[in-house]
């Protein structure tokens, strides 16, 4: 039986939902125009008056905002409330530049927790469950986000944060963890450590659900994880700019429901900025409808996806985003061809002889891009005949070439040598000096 956290909202007919979005959008535009110098300026520069925005169709008149805006206005230049109204900051890691700061009012934290409480309910997680939150706690939003969301939903939280894997596994057994929240890479590593300790996650623990995100992963990887550990693995979506982890797939594992009363989503052509029709693949653009401290208008989050507005089997009417192929930032251009690490993962995980960990290495030799993929052979697939190993390399090379349209060199390495990650896994080493 399907349960809902808030059936009235989650099953609201689409036309009513859209009316609600229009009303919230009009209020939002007035609010940001009068509360933020940044928004006033970009609206004025784009010659947009708040009165111009009446319907959802008018959304396209509004200018986009970017991660670079958050950096340029560091630390709090885009905020719409004075700092004393904030109850929390989170700060994103500055791996690709200056860090960005996100602030939350008490109500922002409540909306965030509500969003996750709905999501947890949609995958059958609630009172009686124990969730082990192995996302990092601290400036990163993953740990505290899931923590507050799970508490809101009445789930017992085991706030392990990341690292200290053997202890995590002991606690998983001793405290009957039923839900695990972490990156898919970390869960795979955890499973390896469990095997070394002689613990089977499938047989020796009560774990039944995994909530995996903070890095792109594929359907094929889901298959591997579910098969190896006997759990149901769900994708979670969210980024620090939007608060943190927010929404998950429902029990049907067919796209992530984005709560329409909190977020307005569009997909655009990243080149032209034009809105794309439902079902077309493009760059996700998000407008927050309920945030007070740091509302975002047409924010170019950079993820490549498809929107599905078909009613879901679960009865929820809110639109779904289909599996994120990758973030535009993660896309590699090798010899002029676009490559997403997710495409590589998807090919590799279809080949049973290949282990779950891989590394993409790109070099430039004599003005030519060379892409290499390192993989680990599984114990079961190891043959002691040299030819078998070489033909496995060739098989993987040809499968990758078929999908990527690019010649790739595959190199088998000893198991355990590709770095394991406690958080977001680094799957690409781009050594080109561009």
């Amino acid at each position, binding site marked *: 039986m399907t349960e809902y956290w808030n059936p009235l909202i989650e099953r609201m007919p689409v036309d009513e939902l859209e009316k609600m979005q229009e009303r919230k959008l009009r209020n939002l535009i007035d609010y940001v125009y009068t509360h933020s110098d940044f928004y006033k300026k970009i609206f004025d520069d784009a010659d947009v008056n708040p009165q111009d925005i009446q319907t959802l169709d008018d959304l396209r008149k509004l200018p986009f905002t970017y991660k670079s805006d958050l950096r340029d206005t560091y630390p709090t230049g885009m905020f719409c409330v004075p700092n004393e109204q904030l109850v929390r900051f989170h700060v994103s890691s500055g791996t690709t530049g200056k860090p960005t700061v996100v602030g939350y009012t008490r109500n922002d934290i409540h909306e965030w927790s509500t969003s996750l409480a709905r999501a947890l309910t949609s995958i059958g997680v609630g009172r009686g469950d124990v969730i082990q939150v192995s996302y990092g706690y601290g400036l990163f939003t993953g740990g505290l986000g899931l923590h507050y969301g799970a508490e809101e939903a009445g789930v017992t939280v085991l706030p392990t944060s990341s690292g200290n894997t053997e202890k995590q596994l002991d606690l998983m057994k001793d405290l009957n963890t039923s839900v695990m929240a972490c990156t898919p890479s970390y869960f795979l590593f955890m499973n390896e450590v469990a095997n*070394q300790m002689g613990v089977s996650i499938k047989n020796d623990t009560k774990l039944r659900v995994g909530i995996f995100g903070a890095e792109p992963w594929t359907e094929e990887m889901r298959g591997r994880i579910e098969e190896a550990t006997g759990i149901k693995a769900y994708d979670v979506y969210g980024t620090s700019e939007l608060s943190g982890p927010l929404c998950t797939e429902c029990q049907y594992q067919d796209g992530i429901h984005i709560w329409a009363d909190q977020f307005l989503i569009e997909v655009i052509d990243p080149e032209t900025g034009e809105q794309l029709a439902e079902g077309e693949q493009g760059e996700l653009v998000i407008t927050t409808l309920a945030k007070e401290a740091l509302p975002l208008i047409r924010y170019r989050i950079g993820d490549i996806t498809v929107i599905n507005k078909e009613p879901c089997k679960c009865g929820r009417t809110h639109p779904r985003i289909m599996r994120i192929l990758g973030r535009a930032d993660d896309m590699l251009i090798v010899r002029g061809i676009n490559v997403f690490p997710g495409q590589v993962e998807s090919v590799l995980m279809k080949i049973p002889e290949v282990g779950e960990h891989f590394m993409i290495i790109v070099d430039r030799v004599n003005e030519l891009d060379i892409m290499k993929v390192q993989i680990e052979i599984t114990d079961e697939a190891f043959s*002691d005949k040299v030819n078998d190993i070489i033909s496995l390399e060739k098989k993987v090379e040809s499968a990758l070439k078929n999908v990527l349209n690019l010649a790739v060199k595959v190199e088998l390495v000893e198991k355990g040598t590709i770095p394991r990650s406690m958080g977001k896994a680094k799957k690409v080493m781009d050594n080109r000096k561009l």
Partner: protein
Amino acid sequence: MEDKIIKQISLFAENKPGRLANIAANFRKADINIRAFTIAEAGDFGIIRMVVDKPDAAHEVLHDAGFTVSETNVLGVEMDDVPGGLGMIANVLSEKSINIDYAYAFVTKTEKALLILRVNDIEAAIKVLQDASIKLIEMANIQEI
């Protein structure tokens, strides 16, 4: 027939410094003695094949040390250490269309040569070699060679 099968330890190793030393250190700790050894190298990686006195223990220590390792069934053929010894064995097998996947040989303490063979049909190979009165070493005798 089972007792004529020798369990060889095979492992995958990248071609980089320290790999052999690591294996040797693990064996020393576990008091495992290598009787025959070869490396098949192919560019970036190699496959190390060994006949040891305690194959199950060797498999365990290498697996626990994180190696990709397997036990492979091979044959140990005793040959007179004289010209023509190898040719006769190869002939016997080829007459029955048994293919040799790989082979390596070494000379024993007793002035015999020992040939380690991996074939595509191990049971058929045992039969034809025994029919031709060729002596196969047993796992139990590995210690003595």
